């Protein structure tokens, strides 16, 4: 029985993630079948280890078994049910001005969600807006993210104008380990700012980009602002199913 435990523990770790339907909180959709196959192989290895009276591989010692239990411990105690990592260095992922090389267009998006039209607004992710196309100026969009206030707008001779209202979302390309906070600018058009850190559904139109430091950042002029609960999937996904 002890011989089977390492495989049973790893199978349980992945199994818990799949049963709680949390895989998509950590890894891209393309990993679903790989995780299911992994659980199946690990379960078979555990079963064979139980059934076989003796084998070449000796039973693991207790300290090693404890180590193999760590993923479940972290999953259940720490990571499970926790919100995503907090916005740390919110990056304005957009076109740098004055760069010495030609910026590359981002081609690998969006793969996770098919854009839909709601009340005349195209539902998009923050990532899609962050790498927006200038042809889209004036488009009506609906986007969801976390509101961050940068205080009153200021102008600095070196940094340029600093926008006051931001919408932030963690963007994932492959797994949650590569989550980066990506930001767009909101033009509230005179509305009262929501509380800092609130989840918002924003409907509005893509406006002229805001200048932030040496960057041009997508700006949305707000038509409608709705406070919402944190979504089940807190991330915005960029990677296509590869």
């Amino acid at each position, binding site marked *: 029985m002890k011989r089977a435990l390492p495989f049973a523990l790893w199978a349980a770790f992945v199994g818990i993630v799949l049963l709680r339907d949390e895989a998509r909180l950590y890894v891209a959709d393309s990993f679903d079948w790989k*995780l299911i196959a992994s659980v199946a192989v690990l379960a078979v290895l555990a079963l064979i280890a139980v059934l076989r009276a003796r084998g070449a591989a000796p039973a693991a010692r207790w*300290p090693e078994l404890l180590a193999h239990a760590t993923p479940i411990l972290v999953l259940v105690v720490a990571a499970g049910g926790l919100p995503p990592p907090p916005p740390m260095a919110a990056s304005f992922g957009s076109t740098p001005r004055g760069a010495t090389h030609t910026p590359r267009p981002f081609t690998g998006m969006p793969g996770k969600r098919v854009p839909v039209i709601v009340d005349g607004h195209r539902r998009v992710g923050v990532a899609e807006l962050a790498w927006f196309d200038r042809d889209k100026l004036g488009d009506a969009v609906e986007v969801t993210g976390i509101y961050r206030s940068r205080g009153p707008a200021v102008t600095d001779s070196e940094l340029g104008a600093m926008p006051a209202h931001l919408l932030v979302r963690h963007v994932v390309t*492959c797994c949650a380990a590569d989550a980066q906070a990506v930001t767009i600018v909101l033009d509230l058009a005179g509305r009262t700012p929501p509380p800092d850190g609130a989840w918002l559904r924003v409907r509005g139109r893509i406006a002229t980009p805001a200048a932030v430091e040496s960057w041009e950042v997508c700006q949305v002029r707000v038509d409608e602002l709705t406070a919402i609960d944190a979504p089940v999937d807190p991330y915005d996904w960029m990677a296509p199913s590869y």
Partner: protein
Amino acid sequence: MLLPRAVGPALSVAGLARRRTPTRRLHTALAILLVAAAIVALPPLAPAADWQRTFGVTFVALLLAALPYVLLGSLLSGVIAVLLPDAFLARWSRRLGPFAVPGTVLLAPLFPVCECGSVSVARALMRKGLPPAQAVAYLLAAPLVNPTVALATATALGADMAVARCIGGAVIATGVGLATLLIAPARWLRPVGADACADDHDHGDDHGHAHAAPSWRQRGRQLIDHVADDFAEMSLFLLVGVALAAAIKASALGDGFADASAGELSGPPTLMATAFIMSLCAEADAFVAASFTAASPAAILAFLIFGPMVDLKLLLMYRLAFRSWYVAALALVIALATLALVPLLTRWLA
């Protein structure tokens, strides 16, 4: 079955596991420390803080992303151990002569696994008689000279970048493989296990006697034993490496790379450091690289070439096969080679 005596004192898979190498003991100790730290530092004993969330999410995500490939590597290494004829690789290497190392790099796509699985496969190939320098060349080339990785890179960054990445990886893997030929294997290689015998007995005495060909039933048992033991060992190393990567990402060290990545000179080393810490899979890192829109093509290429060969979790996994000084030298040489090669490849890209 006549056992290959490629390197040092051969140990069977069973013997290797029973003897608990010092490296394995060290990683077991590190893993226990990790468990203790997790119990003390994480909820419910401690209130949830931002760094704990980042650590927890990063740790679980990296494990989920790497696990299928570690398992695939173990399965493939089991198939090699059981089904590949013993003398085949040694004979093939002798025939290629001085072209054996570049030949291995070019043939790496025959075993197309990314970096988490390539350590297992390289060890299995060494056990089957592949000269160690060629195994190192395979280890470094497999994640880069790889059709799946090339396709993902081409999708995210274009065909030119995919080709440049492939060429860069092949050149460095060949160079490191050739340089490794100059060092006696006993100085840099940990003892490599030979394959378990059909009758399951321990080959720790390296007696190299002949056996009758095993039946398919016996081969099946060998395969399962090999896969089970390899996975139990690799997963331990993966665990510690991923924990270190998640801890660094959760700390302040993981921040502040974005600005430096935009510089022409600071860009490549900055993104190489980012790749080292993030420990991403080679099949996915091109999409992450594509999001660094401020970074120069040279920095992106450095990220793509260096990351699959050297990252935090890989260094720990390499220690399963190589001595510590060689792992450190490997990381340094690959870093310098990447920095030297990237400007040339970027000029070609332009």
